[in-house]
């Protein structure tokens, strides 16, 4: 069975390293991008099965990238999990308005992250 492809988007090298370390324990192929603009480019080229994206990033935020991806035919149904620093309702609402499928809050819990990834990739 081919590995599911996950695009991880984060400008923080530490966060990126941590998330890829967690995901590589599972049956996933991880590809990366370090800002929202690059995420859109990589997503259109690589067609990942799921996108895990930080919110606060240079050039294009996670919310903006999410909106952009939802307008593209190739990625309009790809599950997108946003990684938010702030877990307040307003922030979450903005995430869902931008078209994200789900969210996780920092600090990331490895088990929670893997569970959400499994849920959305299996769905």
């Amino acid at each position, binding site marked *: 069975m081919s590995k599911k492809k996950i695009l991880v988007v984060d400008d923080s090298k530490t966060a990126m390293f941590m998330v890829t370390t967690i995901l590589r324990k599972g049956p996933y192929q991880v590809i990366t991008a370090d800002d929202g603009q690059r995420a859109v480019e990589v997503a259109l080229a690589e067609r990942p099965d799921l996108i895990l994206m930080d919110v606060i990033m240079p050039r294009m935020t996670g919310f903006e990238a999410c909106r952009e991806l939802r307008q593209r035919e190739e990625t309009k149904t790809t599950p997108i999990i946003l990684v938010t620093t702030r*877990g*307040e309702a307003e922030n979450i609402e903005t995430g869902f308005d931008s078209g994200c499928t789900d969210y996780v809050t920092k600090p990331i819990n490895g088990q929670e992250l893997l569970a959400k990834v499994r849920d959305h990739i299996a769905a």
Partner: protein
Amino acid sequence: MKDRNDVGGYVRRVQEGTQRYAQDVLAENERLRMLVTALEGEKLLLADKARLVGELVQANEALRTLAASLETETRRLQDHAVALRADRERFETELARLQSQLDGVKDESERYSARYAEVEQQNSNLANLYVASYRLHGTLSRKEVLDTIQEIVANLIGSEEAALFELDPAAHTLKLAASFGAGPDTRRSIPLGDGLIGRAAAAGEIYVADPDAAPSEAEGERNLTACIPLVLDGRVSGAIVIYRLLPQKAGVEDVDRELFDLLATHAATALYCTKLHQELGARVGAGR
């Protein structure tokens, strides 16, 4: 004449007697005819009864056969019921045994699940420690080490308000080297032994605020969550101060304490290495 009269009388009497006899015979004949008719009716009735009795005898025979067969069937069913009862008892015993086994398996499964979750959590914690250590020692750039400390605090511990102090050994004072999100009231220098931060640095022991105790209102200590002295070769070289945790973070957890321990030595070493690297670079540059 008298004789003639006597004969005539006799004849008449004979005639009358014969007539009466004939009438009697006719009456008897009629009675007998009626009796025969009645007997014939009786005979037919008896024939019907005989037929009915024959049928009843046949039916009785059939019923007897049926009763015998039912008796046999009853005995067979009784035997079967006894066997089924024995089977049921055996199955109930087996069911109880299997239920007990299932309960055992369930208990074991729950124990394994709990253990699995525990191991997964430990894995996750170890991954955090590995990531922190790898990132701190993956560079000789001071800026990158400072960024990494900030990222560890934000992404692994869960705070966007922290400051890094470095010790000025001559002045016995912690000097602010970097801060993020810590607010303007962050003190720029803290004498060793002064306040919670100064005391933690002087003792070289990690301070974690007690969530049940009243928070400190001292300058630069509002919202203080932890102070992690940076210790290198047994000597304090600075401190990482963590203020407010992210709202979704309930409090300091075991893995955070392990990260504090790791930061205490590895951040100190990483910063020291960048300093050595800078000094070496400067010396090499001067030597050219």
